[in-house]
């Protein structure tokens, strides 16, 4: 029997019947699941061809010294054979503890961590604050919401150019600061202010998503919980701490994870804000791109190695994050 809906029985591990022998399982498995495998086949093919194959190829490149001078090219009618060589783990060793490791990798690594933490923190807390404000019975709150969503609605590459106009040396921001007799930093030239502007622009772009998601979460919290808490004499802070925050758990854990992944990989904001002009404000992703495509000769091998390292960092982080979430949930249940 093929079953289209076996979720009800297979949902929890304890509900399963004892497993039969291996041969039997394979045969049953095929009969029972061939529909499922037929249905996931297209995605499996796409992932295999478009993701896993390039990934494997990229892994191989990281073990070579490939750059734009020694890879195969076609110039006019002449085919130039690839001449790069296998050099083992040298690229990784060079990136992680080579002579320029700090300047090239670790300084960008630290900045990337700071960037991710600060941006996601700001996204989350500003988003939460605005969501709480919008969740009240307030005149014009639909209107506010529509305006506050605007930064999300406009494509990033458009708004970043808007910000570049504003942050230019004599742009509106500095004119305004000057008018107020405040110092006028070189937003797009000075390393500290470059980082500051990048965080500012990215915060501006990212808050609406958090706000809308958390607002959805707030609206799904049952009102009777607040009533019960109030009956028990909980004050506003206690209600926030013990009703609102736990009620937002599932939404906030998801959006924070997504936010961290997106911010860690945020390419467009920094790339479009500075182009190639700000080596110290590059996060690892844009730095990897710079190595592979923003300089001559293009260092394909190192760029790919950065990519693999980045992916590894994210996968490790996500595994820990999920484990931490699960443990917390179990603690709550006990």
């Amino acid at each position: 029997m093929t079953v289209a809906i076996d979720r009800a029985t297979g949902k929890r591990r304890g509900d399963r019947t004892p497993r039969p022998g291996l041969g039997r399982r394979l045969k049953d498995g095929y009969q029972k699941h061939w529909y499922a495998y037929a249905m996931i086949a297209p995605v499996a093919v796409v992932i295999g061809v478009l993701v896993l194959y390039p990934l494997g190829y990229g892994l191989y490149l990281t073990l070579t010294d490939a750059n734009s001078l020694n890879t195969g090219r076609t110039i006019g009618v002449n085919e130039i054979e690839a001449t790069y060589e296998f050099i083992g783990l040298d690229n990784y060793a060079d990136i992680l503890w080579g002579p320029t490791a700090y300047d090239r990798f670790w300084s960008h690594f630290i900045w990337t961590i700071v960037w991710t933490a600060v941006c996601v923190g700001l996204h989350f807390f500003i988003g939460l604050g605005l969501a709480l404000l919008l969740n009240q019975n307030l005149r014009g709150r639909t209107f506010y919401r529509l305006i506050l969503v605007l930064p999300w609605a406009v494509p990033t590459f458009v708004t970043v150019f808007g910000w570049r106009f504003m942050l230019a040396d004599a742009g509106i921001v500095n004119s305004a600061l000057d008018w107020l007799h405040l110092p006028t930093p070189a937003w797009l030239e000075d390393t500290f202010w470059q980082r500051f502007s990048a965080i500012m622009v990215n915060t501006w772009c990212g808050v609406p998503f958090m706000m809308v998601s958390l607002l959805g979460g707030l609206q799904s919290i049952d009102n009777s919980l607040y009533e019960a808490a109030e009956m028990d004499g909980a004050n506003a802070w206690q209600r926030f701490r013990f009703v609102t925050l736990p009620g937002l758990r599932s939404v906030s854990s998801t959006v924070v994870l997504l936010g961290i992944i997106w911010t860690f990989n945020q390419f467009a904001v920094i790339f479009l804000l500075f182009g190639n002009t700000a080596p110290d404000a590059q996060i690892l992703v844009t730095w990897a791109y710079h190595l592979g495509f923003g300089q001559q000769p293009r260092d394909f091998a190192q760029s790919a190695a950065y990519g693999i390292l980045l992916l590894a960092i994210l996968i490790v982080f996500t595994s820990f994050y999920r484990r931490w979430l699960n443990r917390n949930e179990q603690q709550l249940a006990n």
Partner: protein
Amino acid sequence: MSTTTAPTKAPAEQVTASTAPPRRVRGRGERGRAASLASHGVLTVASLIALFPVAWLVYLSLGPDKNDYLHPERIWSKMTFDNYAFVLQHTQFFDWLKSSLIVSLGTTVIGVMVAATTGYAVSRMRFPGYRKLMWVLLVTQMFPIAVLIVPMYQILSELQLVDSYLGLILVYCSTAVPYCAWLLKGYFDTIPFEIDEAGRVDGLNPFGTFFRLILPLARPGLAVAGFYSFITAFGEVAFASTFMLSDTKYTFAVGLQSFVSEHDAQRHLMAATAVLVAIPVSAFFYLVQKNLVTGLTAGGTKG
């Protein structure tokens, strides 16, 4: 009993519900005037911050000189739509529009078509390898562009697909397909399983159930997945600027940068183009924004 709470400005106070039991002096959710004013104040400031960069871009796009952004006060007296006319008539705006649309729509169509059955399978069926598949779908969300860009570039140049629409569509599918599958799973989860059961009782096999019953019901979900693929492909910068070499095949994300070269910065035209791109996309966004969030978080929380 301390059921009546003193009005505070703390946001937690304002979280509370709008339905107030009648006996209270001041119902929950009703605030004092000061708290209300503070809320409006904060929201107004936030709205201005959200609005200003976009409004400023629109304002600058009306100034006819390329350095008007440094002297915004001069724009008032000479506001004109000349930039727009110039962009539409004398730049490659329509070439870029064409490439953006081909690439984004191609990604959308392929992404949604390929991903739909998988979304259904992972929503309804538990098969060996299910957890691994979900894990792969999640992991592909976090691929930094740096992981795929170099190997993709090599592979596409071997296949002579650099600077072709098909190449870029294929690259985008590497993220759009897993993403759509993930998103659609969340949506299919919200369709009652009883519908499948009814279909089974009537003698449909899982394919029949999916195509005849579930797919028509899932149209909003498909639309959301499609829209997400569309805006992701539309706004993508790194792959587009690396793989598209001829200026007639630029997408907007790349074309917009070409206004500012080392020697000449036509910022007024850039602003006008940016506004022309932003208007339809934002309008479209507002039409579907409510579904966007539910779709996304449903996929995430239930996974």
